[in-house]
């Protein structure tokens, strides 16, 4: 919902706090998820995530949530799906080039980031979206990724993508994941 999206950006600082707590909770739960099996919880968590974030942010379940780095304005709502916006086509008044009745997602993002404590994360270059992760839970991914980071940070230098976008990997691990993906989290349609 467009109005909920605007609300989220206006209250970016509050949502930042909520998100930080949620993230801590998810990381704490990592051993539990690992025990049950990430594969088993994937579906139900993804369902809840879709409902909550869909309502608040018009979430499209890219599976690579970067809200904390984008002023709580979801970049997947940008018609060009930019991960590092805004583009040069913004209309007077800060409206979208492609959908003139909509406020530019990235103008909102920079506005929201200014309200946030960790708003400077927006200055970090984000990698392109991995489309094979669409539909999967970014929350579980953060849980796995942050937990894995805590366990062995030495693995962090493994893949080239993560090396190419080190800051993004640190701020938004789900955008450049390294931990093994459970089969349920991978969209096989997209991989075929």
């Amino acid at each position, binding site marked *: 919902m467009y109005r909920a999206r605007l609300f989220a950006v206006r209250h970016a600082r509050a949502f930042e706090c909520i998100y930080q707590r949620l993230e801590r909770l998810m990381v704490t739960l990592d051993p539990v998820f690992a025990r049950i099996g990430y594969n088993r919880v994937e579906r139900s968590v993804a369902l809840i995530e879709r409902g909550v974030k869909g309502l608040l942010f018009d979430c499209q379940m890219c599976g690579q949530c970067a809200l904390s780095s984008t002023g709580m304005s979801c970049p997947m709502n940008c018609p060009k799906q930019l*991960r590092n916006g805004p*583009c*040069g*086509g913004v*209309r007077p008044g800060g409206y979208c080039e492609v959908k003139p009745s909509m406020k*530019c997602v990235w103008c909102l993002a*920079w506005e929201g980031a200014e309200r946030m404590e960790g708003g400077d994360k927006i200055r970090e270059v*984000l990698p392109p979206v991995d489309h094979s992760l669409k539909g999967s839970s970014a929350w579980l991914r953060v849980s796995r990724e942050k937990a894995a980071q805590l366990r062995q940070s030495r693995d962090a230098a493994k893949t*080239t*993508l993560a090396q190419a976008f080190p800051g993004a990997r640190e701020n938004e691990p789900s955008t450049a994941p390294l931990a093994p993906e459970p089969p349920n989290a991978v969209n096989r349609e997209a991989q075929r």
Partner: protein
Amino acid sequence: MSPSSSDFPELMRGYETPPPGHVSGSRLERVLRAGKFAVTAELNPPDSADPADVFDAAQPLGEVADALNATDASGANCHMSSIGICALLTRAGYDPVYQISCRDRNRIAIQGDVLGAAAMGVRNVLCLTGDGVGVGDQPGAKPVFDFDSISLLRAIRTMRDQGVFLSGRKIARPPRMFLGAAENPCVEPHQWRPDRLAKKVEAGAEFIQTNYIYDLPLFEKFMSRARDLGLDKRVFILAGVGPLASAKAARWMRSNVPGIHIPDHVIDRMEKAAKPGDEGKRLCIELIQQIREIKGVAGVHVMAYRREHQVSEIILESGVLKGRATVGGRRGRGAGVPTA
């Protein structure tokens, strides 16, 4: 018997190592690093399969430009591909700027094209997000936008400096490219534009070509903030300029081409002119002369859509070359490092 590289000595010139302190063998890079006020020009891509149409379009621009930009379906309108134009231009001895838009191709196509372009002698690349498909001649096309301009910069820099694709696969001979990006200082959100420029530099941009500048106070504000961020020391900024044809054309551009800001006083001036074409040229020359005085501007990028015949007069009358020969011209006529 299959041909080997030694059968085509002319075509198979080795992949030269960049001069010390340079990232590419680009002549534009040499001019900029030598501290000269650089001139680049946008080539109007033909709707044709005839190479002669490319050379005809390049000829008047090459006389006064250090490098020629080959646009990649700008405004989402279909024309000859930028990589095709670049390949022709390098053969004729020009120094092309290969524009890549993220609108039409995904990461597999783009990374492959970068290698192809480098193999054809292309040494400058301009990374663009691209206009939406809706404004172009085929609005039903599927928009790709797999990369955005900034992740594209980082991807090519990774290919060049680390010698690998984003997948991690090794590249035997990495592409030696001078990395460029666009910037649009005169459109919203004005306060964040310099910060986004900083992101582009962080991602790998080494030169910037801006969109049209008609609003000098806005541009000056942008440059002052860019200087505060120390960006003028980290990236070469070329300001975009171009002659307007008439007040009507200016109004049309303002409302139909994404990302173009033309203040009312400029349109008024065009309206009052007896000969709008000459007035547009005069205005462009004045802008160039004022822009070159702004600290941190390293050159100008001339985009004279359908007014290419005016480019050489504009540059020569503006006096920015100070009599030096440009290096965009064909081999043997001003090619190589300028000595002046």
